[in-house]
């Protein structure tokens, strides 16, 4: 596929317009005469045009079965293949000019790398939308194929709207369901409430440049006049930054719309520059619900969703603004629970003694301010009421209390929620499963108060939206418990995921019934496989019992997994122990946090191991569920993988056993095998 033809002049002009303007500027400044400037500009333009024509001719993208291939580059050529499964976000943006000439920029994000992995500039808007949809369609299709030909019907049922009737390649476009559309009133609110404190700083910085100029106009400085100017200046600053913030927010969120299509969220927004993009719900790392005192008073909040696709420094354009700019607080929580069902949080606060710490801190700030005021007073030799800031001391206890009051964390069933900040309060929800590492820090000052901060680090954008979820200033013992609890719960979540995934892999060891995903049978076969002890996967904590014990369920190769008789019913069928989790099954799966649990996204994962070869899969893609795999997974399962393929090919199970036995000592070989597998 080619780019849109209009992109040639646009790109050329975009690149050299600065140069051209500079040329004209130079020409007028140096008296070269306009013809020189025009000539030079024409030459530059021609060169840029030629380059862009070459770029256009070279640039080619193609949607293959598994990857999006982009070949580009005039001087150094680059061929890039991006597997659909790895694509996290597909964003389309069009600014005013691009809209006028009918082109759109498409950006594809994967989790890796520091920049946008696939950037297609520019295609027609229709093509951009097609790309967006097509990538998602093919993503689901690859997933379904990876899941084998058995039953594709289960795919996406958890999300309700996903294509419910298709199989194989002909995956239908999932039904798009509107979640949120901004109303004019809300848009006005976004503008009115999006007061950005940082703008004040910036403006103050800019304005400070004009102070010497202004002071020239001021007559002999009297105290009252100076104070008045300061107050008026400050007021103006606030007003201007507010107006700027309002305008920016208004143009950003004009026509905001959030919808859900299958397993991804889609959004559209923008007045001058139109953005649209997709966020795969399964790649969500963190949800942030933020508000400020004004929003709280009016009962509104903001939701932002972080995925791993956006590298730090580029999230500002799409990532952090990809969610709901403003909505009634209840609505925001409902929307957030649609994405990650974290239940009703009940935050626990830091110890009350910590209020003293904040009190001291603020008192120190007030003292500092007073000191500065005194210095100014002394410097300008006026009789200013420099002790004015001391009045702030009265507010210090209140401020300390508020600061304390708005901190907190809550350990939900599947999520950690943290809350911080009074002026800009952020509630962050992190699924345990997404935790990358847990960091416990204690500064010198914190140690004095015997408190610590626990940070749950995720692969999200991090710095952009204000950092990771952190439980700040909790008692040291509590912090230690929290830290250990978080790592444990991560392990639990992993075990649970694995348990969900693996029964299906073992479905056919002694039972060739491929398309059945009945739980009873799964566990049954699982159990049998376990007693056969054919491979480490079996011992891997497949049945629900193991999901309650955290760490040790991971991979003891030798653990015989015939320990689940607690559930053996009269008919001798072992049923999964759903009671082991605290999930509420009383409600329909769609409205509860199924967390992919109650509804199996990929009941046909079981087929992968064998059907892999049919699809030309190397079993590598075959194994992963919706989230894809990482290397470790592939590695550790390699042996098993072969084992299963072996079964499929009619080779004895003993092969698999050997494989596993070798596994422990033959890591290096294993590695090599993996490489060659790839």
């Amino acid at each position, binding site marked *: 596929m080619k780019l849109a033809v209009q992109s040639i002049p646009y790109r050329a002009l975009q690149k050299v317009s600065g140069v051209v303007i500079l040329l004209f500027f130079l020409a007028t400044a140096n008296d070269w005469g306009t013809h020189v400037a025009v000539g030079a500009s024409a030459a530059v333009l021609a060169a840029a045009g030629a380059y862009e024509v070459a770029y256009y001719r070279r640039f080619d993208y193609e949607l293959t079965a598994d990857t999006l291939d982009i070949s580009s580059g005039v001087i150094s050529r680059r061929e890039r293949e991006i597997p659909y499964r790895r694509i996290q976000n597909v964003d389309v943006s069009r600014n005013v000019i691009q809209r006028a000439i009918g082109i759109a920029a498409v950006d594809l994000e994967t989790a890796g790398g520091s920049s946008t992995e696939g950037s297609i500039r520019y295609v027609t808007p229709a093509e951009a939308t097609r790309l967006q949809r097509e990538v998602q369609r093919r993503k689901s299709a690859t997933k379904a194929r990876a899941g084998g030909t058995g039953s594709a019907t289960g795919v996406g049922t958890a999300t309700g709207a996903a294509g419910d009737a298709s199989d194989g390649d002909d995956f239908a476009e999932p039904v798009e369901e509107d979640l949120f559309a901004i109303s004019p009133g809300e848009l006005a609110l976004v503008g009115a409430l999006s007061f950005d404190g940082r703008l004040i700083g910036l403006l103050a910085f800019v304005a400070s440049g004009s102070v010497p100029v202004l002071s020239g106009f001021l007559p002999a400085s009297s105290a009252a006049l100076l104070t008045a100017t300061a107050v008026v200046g400050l007021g103006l600053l606030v007003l201007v930054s507010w107006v700027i913030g309002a305008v920016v927010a208004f143009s950003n969120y004009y026509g905001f719309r959030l919808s859900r299509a299958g397993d991804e969220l889609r959004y559209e927004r923008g007045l001058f520059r139109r953005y649209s993009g997709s966020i795969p719900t399964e790649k969500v790392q963190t949800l942030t619900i933020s508000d400020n005192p004004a929003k709280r008073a009016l009962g509104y909040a903001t939701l932002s969703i972080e995925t*791993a696709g956006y590298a730090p420094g580029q999230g500002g354009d799409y990532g952090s603004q990809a969610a709901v700019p403003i909505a009634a607080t209840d609505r925001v929580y409902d929307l957030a629970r649609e994405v990650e069902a974290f239940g009703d949080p009940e935050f626990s606060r830091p110890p009350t003694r910590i209020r003293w710490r904040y009190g001291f801190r603020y008192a120190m700030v007030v003292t500092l301010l007073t000191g500065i005021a005194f210095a100014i007073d002394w410097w300008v030799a006026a009789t200013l009421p420099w002790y004015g800031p001391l009045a702030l001391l009265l507010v210090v206890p209140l401020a300390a209390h508020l600061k304390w009051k708005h901190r907190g964390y809550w350990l939900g069933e599947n999520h950690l929620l943290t809350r911080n900040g009074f002026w800009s309060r952020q509630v962050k929800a992190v699924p345990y499963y997404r935790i*990358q*590492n847990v960091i416990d820090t204690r500064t010198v000052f914190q140690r004095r108060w015997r408190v610590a901060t626990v*940070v749950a680090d995720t692969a999200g954008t991090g710095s952009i939206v204000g950092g990771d979820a952190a439980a700040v200033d909790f008692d040291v013992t509590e912090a230690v418990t929290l830290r250990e609890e978080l790592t444990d719960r991560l*392990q639990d979540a992993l075990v649970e995921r694995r348990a969900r995934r693996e029964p299906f892999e073992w479905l056919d060891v002694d039972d060739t019934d491929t398309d059945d995903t009945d739980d009873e049978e799964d566990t049954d076969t699982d159990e049998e496989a376990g007693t056969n002890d054919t491979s480490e996967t079996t011992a*891997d904590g497949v049945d629900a019992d193991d999901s309650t014990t955290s760490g040790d369920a991971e*991979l003891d190769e030798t653990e015989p997994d015939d320990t689940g008789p607690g559930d053996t019913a009269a008919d001798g069928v072992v049923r999964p122990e759903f009671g082991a989790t605290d999930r509420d099954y009383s409600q329909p799966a769609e409205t509860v946090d199924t967390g992919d649990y109650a509804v199996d996204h990929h009941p046909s994962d079981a087929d992968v191991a064998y059907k892999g070869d049919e699809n030309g899969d190397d079993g590598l893609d075959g194994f992963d569920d919706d*989230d894809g795999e990482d290397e470790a997974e592939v590695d550790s399962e390699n042996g098993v993988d072969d084992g299963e393929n072996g079964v499929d090919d009619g080779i004895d199970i003993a092969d698999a056993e050997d494989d596993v036995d070798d596994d422990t000592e033959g890591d290096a070989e*294993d590695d090599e095998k993996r490489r060659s597998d790839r």
Partner: protein
Amino acid sequence: MTTLRLHPRVRLVWALRAALLAAFLTLPLAAGAYFGYLPEWVPIVAGAALLAVGVGHALLRYRRWSYEIREDALYLDRGVVTQVRTAVPLVRIQHVDSRRGPVERGVGLASCVVYTAGSRGADVRIPGLTPERADDLREELKRLAIRADGEDAV
């Protein structure tokens, strides 16, 4: 597993680094004294103070540093002014490096860097290992990470 300590010689690396930093910071002062803007004792005192602080920090840092490989995670405990305890779940390890900087090579040490997909603790470094130990640690962590069967990094 028991808590593991760094090789004592790492103090030398850190002390050297502190000395370099102290020298760097005193350079302008020394220049000032050389050109007669400052009395001569200023750079000496400042340099000595910086060096003392740096070396003290290095010693305390060594005393504080420990790491531990437990069954499901790698635990690090470090930091003098701000104490930091990090738990890196083995499933989250993306890749592991062992590396040797010039100073480390000078004193015959190496370090091991563990990468995760996180945003803040994207890489944690265990310094002060003998080269063999660093390689062993790398291999061990690799093995454990593989065994831990992380299915999905992000």
